[in-house]
């Protein structure tokens, strides 16, 4: 418990505690507003659609808000010093070596994916996916007011990504990852000598008994075939769903291009936790191994 308090109040970790508290609060706050609006004929926002003068009604709020933020920041800065460790030493690698906290979700992905996926592909897709949101979400409803009923899929998908894949992985990386990037409970002592025996197998080996490499250490074409089949099969779920639902108004309005982007991003996002579970539960390392890249 003492150890827990120690990492929670480590100067650089205070923002993460703050972020966790604020995200939980605002998720609840927005959900409450949305559900309240959903029960009513007219949204709360629409009831306040009349115009007021910016001076003083908005400027007042901004002024007080700014004062409050500056007061908090000043107290925070008087109370807690920014850390300054030993001078940089390229020959002395700390264990664990952690990226800045906002990248810990990506660093966590490194456990389950090769660096080109965790460090390059996933962040690129996050940026691309975020930019694409306004153009692939063609539901005109729920613009400018809180609601849940009118945009269930959009809200649940975004919250899944933001809360479960981004925020909670940052928390995991900060509070639960210790030396050797092993999992430590927050109250556990960080034992730098802990060794966790890992016997990772690849997907084809585990489920079909097909080894990834042949006796002469070249790649087994059969394993590659199975791997490709699984990866393509996963994405063809999107195609199958399209064929099944193509007559419905939503899919028709979406069009095939927008649908492909939605399906690709959605399936990719969902593949992340699935791979995590496969790794943790079954020690599966790769689904597909090729001479150039592994998935």
């Amino acid at each position: 418990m003492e150890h827990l308090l120690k990492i929670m109040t480590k100067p650089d970790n205070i923002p993460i505690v703050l972020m966790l508290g604020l995200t939980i609060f605002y998720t609840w706050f927005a959900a409450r507003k949305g559900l309240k609006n959903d029960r009513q004929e007219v949204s709360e926002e629409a009831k306040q659609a009349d115009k007021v003068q910016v001076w003083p009604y908005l400027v007042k709020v901004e002024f007080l808000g700014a004062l409050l933020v500056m007061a908090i920041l000043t107290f925070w800065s008087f109370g807690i010093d920014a850390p300054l460790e030993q001078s940089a030493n390229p020959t002395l690698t700390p264990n664990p070596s952690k990226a800045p906290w906002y990248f810990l979700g990506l660093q966590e992905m490194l456990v389950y994916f090769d660096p080109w996926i965790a460090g390059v592909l996933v962040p690129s897709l996050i940026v691309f996916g975020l930019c694409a949101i306004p153009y692939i979400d063609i539901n005109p409803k729920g613009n400018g007011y809180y609601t849940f009923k009118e945009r269930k899929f959009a809200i649940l998908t975004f919250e899944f990504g933001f809360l479960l894949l981004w925020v909670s992985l940052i928390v995991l990386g900060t509070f639960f990852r210790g030396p050797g990037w092993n999992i430590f409970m927050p109250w556990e002592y960080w034992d730098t000598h802990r060794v966790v025996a890992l016997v990772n197998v690849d997907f084809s080996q585990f489920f079909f008994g097909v080894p990834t490499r042949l006796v002469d250490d070249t790649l087994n074409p059969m394993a590659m075939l199975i791997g490709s089949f699984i990866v393509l099969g996963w994405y063809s779920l999107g195609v199958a769903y399209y064929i099944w639902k193509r007559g419905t108004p939503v899919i028709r309005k979406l069009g095939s291009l927008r649908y492909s982007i939605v399906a690709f991003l959605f399936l990719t996002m969902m593949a992340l936790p699935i791979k995590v579970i496969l790794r943790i539960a079954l020690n599966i390392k790769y689904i597909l191994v090729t001479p150039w890249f592994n998935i």
Partner: protein
Amino acid sequence: MLGIVEQLRDKMQRTEVYKSIFRHSYQDTQRNRALQILDNVFLHLHPVRISRHATNIGFTWGMGGITFLLFIILTVTGVILMFYYRPAAEYAYDDMKYLMNDVAFGPLMRNMHRWAAHAMVITVMLHMFRVFLTGSYKAPRQFNWVIGVFLLTLTLFLSFTGYLLPWDQLAIWAVTVGTNMARATPFLGSEGPFGPELGMRIDNDVRFVLLGGTQVGPPTLLRFYVLHCIFLPLIAAVLMTVHFWRIRKDGGISGPDVSTKKF
């Protein structure tokens, strides 16, 4: 009979100098409230009148505004830190020590800069979360959301490049972990898919360009310093200008479309 103070004030307010600076009186009238916004270059970011729900902190959470405020605080404290900091490996760490131990208000400036930077990352994420939950990225604000996404990545890069500057163990190793990824970039990294096939080596790939060497070293410090203090803040400032301009052009803060009864 007016008191001496009031008489002086009235006299002052009639001078040419006063009138050239303040263009309207301070009486609380509708007109003056409007002029207060229109005649002030900073307040003029705002419209004169907005719908009531947009002044409600429960609607916007104030997160965009707080993010902007933190950016300003970071600019001010950052400039002060620049007076004491030299981006060279042999000086950087000692300059930080000096700042923390011997400069009046040095620790306060550094702490404010550090904590405001962390806070800005949090508030920009929450701002995005709010904009998503109120569906405010929908027409006509699609492109302003895209500008926002760029602002988000810039905020992260600003924070990341700043992380290196203290030149302590925390700094170089966090940046080492972060930039090691670049090695794995497809086509452009020495360990990325198809990278070696395209002739990428550790001393010519994209990570090398970023670091100015094969590991985080003095050239990296200078590169990150220039990015952190000049390049990234400039781009961010330009994009914020566009962001705020577009909020006005897109009809102000989003709200339910009361005219068509779609709410």
